[in-house]
């Protein structure tokens, strides 16, 4: 009985251990796949469960590439087309997908990790070499859904667009914005380098329709290539773009303002060149079309004579001669009615001689008669020197004879009465021709032999303290004042030469 009882107890114990123990232990692991070696990664989470094992595992064969590629059609396509990273990996070492993409390592396992050997430097081995700035660009800056042009979903519906590295092509525009909005051909590398977008280092303006010469070479691009706004753009920051086509360039005025207001026509190049707006070609320039036509001697001048320092956009004054010429008369004619206008006396044919004629002179306050008419101008209009000024005198305050001539009589006729002026005796015709009536105009009328006596017989040449010349006043009226004891001879007087 005891043995029977003992055997029954043993049987119950064993039954409990065999049934209950696995049940309890399986509860503890119920959250895990029961025969799975571990949780699948998040990306394959949907494949958890006994019924899904054969979706990845070939019965008796294990997880084969074929099974993987049944779903991962994009990888299969790249392998079939023998391009892309997977081909490279397979070439390097014949290995299964799961060697790199291990599974059952937990939900959070990173299924795709590029090996350390694959860097920006080795990216070229899969067909697209990273050059310039591409080398420092993060992988996901390029490999992101925004840059994937191909409809990958239609090929592999389950593809994760965020994580995939497929779908990019090697054209610039697959990743980069069409900055020129289709104005230029899509051959970006013809102008731009991989180092930087701006400036377009490979662009050669000489190949453009409008060749840059002279100063155009130094002009900032944006001066001609203006900024436009793309109305279709929804992003304000990227809405602006530069205009490169349909820029009128047949005439200079397409860009430049015609400051001559069409006075010289539209062919600017007749006078101007691209070497500089102010470097005007005199050969073709017709100054007569300007506000100041060149006449006379002005036609012989070189431009720089008037346009000192070169041509300036500043309008030159040309109303008065003095705008260019200095007033050699120092304003002596300013008091004239014409305010001293140069052209009253001078012309563009030359400063000298002046056009001021004798007739003109006779219109002045000092008319020329007699011998004055025969005198050269400079005889009267002598050079004056005042400090640094040197000019010919044209304005005379004293217009009497003594204003110019020296009183030859040493004030004999002005110092004593009756006062006589030059013209009382002399004329304009000649100094030596004296129109003087001795009887009427003196207190000593000539009579007898005195009438025949030459003037200088009585008015002798003296050099005295008050006179150096012929003596007219005072002169004695007594005989002995002229004659001595010898009849007919004259007595030399004091100071007589």
């Amino acid at each position, binding site marked *: 009985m005891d043995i029977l009882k*003992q055997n029954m107890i*043993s049987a119950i*114990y*064993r039954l409990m*251990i*065999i049934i209950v*123990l*696995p049940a309890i*232990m*399986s509860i503890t*692991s119920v959250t*895990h*796949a*029961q*025969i*799975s*070696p*571990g949780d699948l990664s998040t990306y394959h989470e949907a494949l958890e469960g006994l019924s899904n*094992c054969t979706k990845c*595992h*070939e*019965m*008796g*064969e*294990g*997880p*084969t590439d074929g099974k993987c590629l049944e779903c991962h059609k994009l990888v299969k396509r790249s392998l079939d087309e023998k391009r892309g990273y997977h081909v490279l990996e397979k070439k390097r070492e014949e290995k299964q997908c799961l*060697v790199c993409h*291990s599974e059952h*390592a*937990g939900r*959070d*396992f990173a299924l795709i*990790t590029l090996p350390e050997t694959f860097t920006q430097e080795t990216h070229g081995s899969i067909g697209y070499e990273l050059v310039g700035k591409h080398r420092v660009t993060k992988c996901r800056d390029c490999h992101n859904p925004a840059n994937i042009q191909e409809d990958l979903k239609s090929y592999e519906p389950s593809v994760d667009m965020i994580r995939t590295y497929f779908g990019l092509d090697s054209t610039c525009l697959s990743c980069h914005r069409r900055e020129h909005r289709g104005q230029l051909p899509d051959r970006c590398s013809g102008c731009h380098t991989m180092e930087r977008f701006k400036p377009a280092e490979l662009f050669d303006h000489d190949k453009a329709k409008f060749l840059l010469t002279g100063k155009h070479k130094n002009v900032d691009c944006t001066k001609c290539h203006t900024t436009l706004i793309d109305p279709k753009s929804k992003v304000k920051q990227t809405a602006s773009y530069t205009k490169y086509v349909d820029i009128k360039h047949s005439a200079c005025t397409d860009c430049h303002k015609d400051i001559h207001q069409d006075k010289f026509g539209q062919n600017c190049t007749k006078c101007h060149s691209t070497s500089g707006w102010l470097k005007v070609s005199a050969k073709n320039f017709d100054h007569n079309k300007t506000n100041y036509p060149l006449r006379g001697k002005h036609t012989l001048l070189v431009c720089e004579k008037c346009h000192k320092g070169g041509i300036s956009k500043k309008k030159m004054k040309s109303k008065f001669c003095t705008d260019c010429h200095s007033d050699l008369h120092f304003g002596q004619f300013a008091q004239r009615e014409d305010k001293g206008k140069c052209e009253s006396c001078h012309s563009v044919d030359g400063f000298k001689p002046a056009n001021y004629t004798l007739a003109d002179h006779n219109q002045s306050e000092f008319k020329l008669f007699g011998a004055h008419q025969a005198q050269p101008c400079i005889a009267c209009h002598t050079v004056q020197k005042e400090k640094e000024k040197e000019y010919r005198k044209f304005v005379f305050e004293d217009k009497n004879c003594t204003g110019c001539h020296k009183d030859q009589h040493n004030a004999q006729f002005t110092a004593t009465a009756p006062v006589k002026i030059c013209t009382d005796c002399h004329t304009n015709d000649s100094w030596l021709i004296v129109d003087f009536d001795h009887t009427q105009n003196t207190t000593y009328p000539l009579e007898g032999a005195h009438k025949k006596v030459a003037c200088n017989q009585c008015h002798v040449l003296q050099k005295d303290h008050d006179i150096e010349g012929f003596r007219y006043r005072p002169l004695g009226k007594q005989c002995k004042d002229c004659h001595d004891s010898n009849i007919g001879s004259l007595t030399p007087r004091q100071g007589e030469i």
Partner: protein
Amino acid sequence: MKAKIFRITLIMMYIVGFVMCAYALFVGWDYYTLPFIERPHHEMHQQLKPGGPIGHGLGIAGSMMILLLFLYSARKRTKWLMRYGTMSHWLDIHIWFGIMGPLLITLHTSMKFNGIVSISYFSMLAVAGSGFIGRYIYMQIPRDENGMELSISQIDLTISGMEQLLVESFQVSPDLLELGSKKSGGADNKKTSRLMIIAHSIVADLKLPVQLYLLKKKILRKHNDVPPAVASEIMKLIRRRSIMRRRRNILGVAHSVFHLWHVIHKPFAVVMIVIMIGHIVVALLMGSKWIF
């Protein structure tokens, strides 16, 4: 002589087994200590993962050892196997498989215990752990050189033989023998539970070396002319007599507990082997063919 060769061979087997396991652990330490999520990126993942050439190989070797464990059960139940070796040798080999197998299986798991197969693994640990206890209880039942259990009368005869040898040949006074029997410990109280008796026995085994050392000093003080070799032989006899007497006293309890131990040990073994076979079948179906 055969027993000595077997013993040396067994020691060598343990040394080789532990060294190999330690080497495998050393080589894969970097990998085994990585978090699971990082392991696939480790350079040795493809080799050391449970399905890799090394990991899978360890699993196969461990599984083979686990399966070979059952030869001991077969030896006990099959007549034609009884012709080969003694029971104690079979048990020693059984224990070696029971230690090395779980170690290799543990390396095979790469310390990753989940899924239904973990039940097998933990059952295996339970079997192995209980094996150590079973071995102790097994030792509490006196056996002959072939491992066959001795009867009470055989035990008594053996004890009296040893006492006679001590008293008559070695001139050991009976009071010292009595002291030695007291010091040998052991509980034989029917009111005490079976598990407590086993526990007392374990404590007594632990205390025994100290007690014997003190007794030896006492004997030598009293009989200072006893040569050391003789004294050593005397102490061996006293020790054997003491252990035999204690085991005789708890023989009934040892039988009972050993039977109970089988109740625990075997079901764990069954659970382990069933799930393990299931795991192997699934692994084969999923394409794990090792190097073949």
